[in-house]
């Protein structure tokens, strides 16, 4: 009886120390940015709608980036109409690995990564094999807009499959870790790396169980990782430390992110970069509505940082100076 009472009381104490809901004033004080504020104060003001198509259509993004000299995964080919599905062989040639994705996919959906071929069988990165006809059906679905914003007819992009840089090998399970940087008015304000786990099925999606690890802007070194809302020190699959990994080519990566602002004209931009073993940092895609998870990964609120940048009367025109400014303002080391 007494033990029951004590456990009940201790549970209550735990609940009081760690309540399921936080007061809005607490979150505000900690500088956490909410969805409504992101939409109303940043996206709707700093992102002009006319520039959305540039980032919503990955094909356009690729072409623009190419012109601006920003590295992206090599484009193998585009399938625009159903009939062209038959040309798949011409596009693929004898390439063993490639990625197929919708040009206007939303939220990373509809991406098929092929890691190898065995005759008419294609091996997905997850290890599942896909037949030629299944592949064609997938492309048809992409073309019909099944994975696209608004369900409009779409194009299928076939491109280079990134070979992940070895730096994250110890802390990722299959898949490709990607580095998301929030760039506000051209200044990098926060960065994180998303590490796939067994649970996330090799996908770099925090919601599905990938680890998010914040990156210190000044040094390019990872800080604590967050997995499903709780801080963790080591990767759940490999047990290796998540903290303190130095991202190679860090300055180059930030510069890519900062230059993306000139390219897209979007004031509030999410830049997703992958580190390729051969080609270095490659811009995978841009996001005009980057999510709020970066706050979880970095364990800090975005809002104070955004307000600092918003208060600047002008931002430097050179991407290099903007990177330096971002590192100076928000670097922790």
């Amino acid at each position, binding site marked *: 009886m007494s033990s029951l009472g004590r456990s009940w009381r201790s549970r209550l104490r735990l609940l009081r120390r*760690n*309540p*399921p*809901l*936080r*007061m*809005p004033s*607490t*979150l*505000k004080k*900690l500088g*956490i940015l*909410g*969805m*409504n*504020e992101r*939409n*109303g*104060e940043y996206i709707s003001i700093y992102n002009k709608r006319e520039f959305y198509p540039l980032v919503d259509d990955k094909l356009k993004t690729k072409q623009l980036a190419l012109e601006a000299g920003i590295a992206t995964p090599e484009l193998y080919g585009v399938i625009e109409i*159903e009939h062209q599905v038959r040309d798949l062989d011409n596009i693929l040639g004898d390439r063993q690995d490639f990625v197929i994705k919708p040009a206007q996919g939303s939220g990373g*959906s*509809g991406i098929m990564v092929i890691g190898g071929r065995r005759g008419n069988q294609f091996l997905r990165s997850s290890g599942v094999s896909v037949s030629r*006809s*299944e592949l064609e*059906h997938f492309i*048809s*679905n992409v073309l*019909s*807009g*099944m*994975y696209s914003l608004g369900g409009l007819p779409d194009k299928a992009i076939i491109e280079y499959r990134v070979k992940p840089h070895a730096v994250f090998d110890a802390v990722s399970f299959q898949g490709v870790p990607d580095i998301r940087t929030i760039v506000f008015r051209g200044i990098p304000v926060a960065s994180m790396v998303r590490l796939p786990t067994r649970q996330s099925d090799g996908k770099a*999606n925090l*919601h*599905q169980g990938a680890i998010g690890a914040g990156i210190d802007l000044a040094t390019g070194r990872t800080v*604590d990782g*967050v997995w499903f*809302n*709780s*801080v963790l020190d080591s990767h759940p699959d490999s047990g290796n430390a998540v903290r303190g990994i130095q991202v190679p080519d860090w300055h180059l990566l930030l510069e890519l992110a900062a230059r993306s602002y000139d390219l897209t004209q979007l004031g509030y931009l999410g830049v997703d970069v992958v580190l390729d073993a051969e080609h270095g940092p490659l811009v995978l895609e841009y996001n005009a509505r980057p999510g*709020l998870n970066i*706050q*979880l990964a970095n*364990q*800090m*609120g975005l809002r104070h940082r955004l307000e600092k940048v918003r208060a600047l009367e002008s931002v430097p025109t050179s991407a290099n100076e903007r990177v330096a400014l971002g590192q100076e303002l928000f670097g922790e080391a």
Partner: protein
Amino acid sequence: MKDFHLKALALFLSVVAIGLCYYKTERLGVPLTPQSSAQVWTAEATVRFNGKDQSAKINLAVPKTPPGFSVLDENFISAGYGLATDDVGANRVVQWAARNLSGPQTLYYRVVLTEDSSAHRDRTQPTPNYPDIPEYSDPERAAVFTLLDSVRARSADTSSFAHELLRRFNDPTPEAEVKVLRDEAADATAQVEQIQHILAGARIPSRIAHVLPLAGSLRHGSLTPWLEVYNGERWLAFNPRTGAAGFPADALVWYAGDMPLVDVAGADDASVQFSALRTSRDVMGLAQQRARLINSDVLEYSLLSLPIATQNTYKILLTVPLGALVVVLLRNFIGLRTFGTFMPVLIALAFRETELLWGCILFSVIVALGLIIRFYLERLKLLLVPRLASMLTIVILLMAGVSVISHKLGMEHGLSIALFPMVILAMTIERMSIVWDENGPKDALLSGLGSLAVAAVGFLVMTHPLAEYLAFVFPELLLLVLAFTLLAGRYTGYRVSELWRFRASARAITNKQ
């Protein structure tokens, strides 16, 4: 100010909405809560007289802006008579005229009234002269002045003076001076006249108001005299029997003053009889009638002027913004996830026919069956549009199947499934299966349940009788909804779901600091 333009617009919309609504409730008497009927009185005066083979004129006093009522309709039933109405001081007189009348004649005046609390206007007309002190007879003089002096000592103003005088005058154990003045045998009118006679001793203007008590259904009724006293600004009514202030409830002030009720020239044996009948009438019909009487076009150009079938459609359509409001609240303020922005509103509309519990069950059954078939279709590798078309066909067949089976089982609720928006259902199944594949069953089920929850709340709001009534009768209130949703468009605070989502971050940041 932040978002000044938006706030000004929202304020403007709110003012327009509330202003129109106020006008309709206060001026036209449209009730704010759903009532199907209101009290309507029909009062009738029957004038009988004998013609004398010559031209005759009959003047009858009739109500003019009676306090506590508004007049909906008036009839002067009088074939073959010339008719004119005229204002005489505070009263209104109808004059019938005809030549060569012989034998018994009957004329009717009928007025249709409804109780109207806003019609309690002050009675100020006419402004009287102060009466001269009458030439009282000797014993009377002493009694009047003794009474008036003692009443004056116990009163502060005209109103309390009249009240005190009436109280003393009607005292069951009267003082000596009252006994002298009171004539027990006199009829009600004569008694009020006697009170007027005494009041004149204090130079207080007074008059008799003739009221028709409306209680129950009245036949062969007559007018009751009531005392009105002028306090220098307006006429105050008193019950001459008790001294209680005001006119009785459910009594119609027919006319006031010394003039006769009926005045006949060229005829004789004139008499007037009153009857009254209480009926219930449709409230909206009343409001429309009243609007017509005061020449207001507000209701003339309202939804009430449409054919009934169209009205019924709008009764439903006008609640849709309320459903949209629920979606805004639950998505932007609470943070629920749904399939499609307004899909839950359409589902909620379907719930109108199925009712809530059965609606939820049928929705879940169709979506669950649809999902199973959709997963099977996935293996056939169909293109998107043909696949959607197939799903639509399958959904309709499923609906038909559920109807037939539930009918056979004697569950008539299953029949109403026919009103589910099948295209929306097919799209929901399609989207849910994609989310299922991409993000796993948990996300798909959460969004599905979210949609169902929003639909349920939307249904409860949209079908609330008060909400339905207000949206239809006061469509301008939807401008208020619009103002709110406009403001919500600039709400940048946290969603409730975020208070949960960031709980770990909040702890971590607090620890770090």
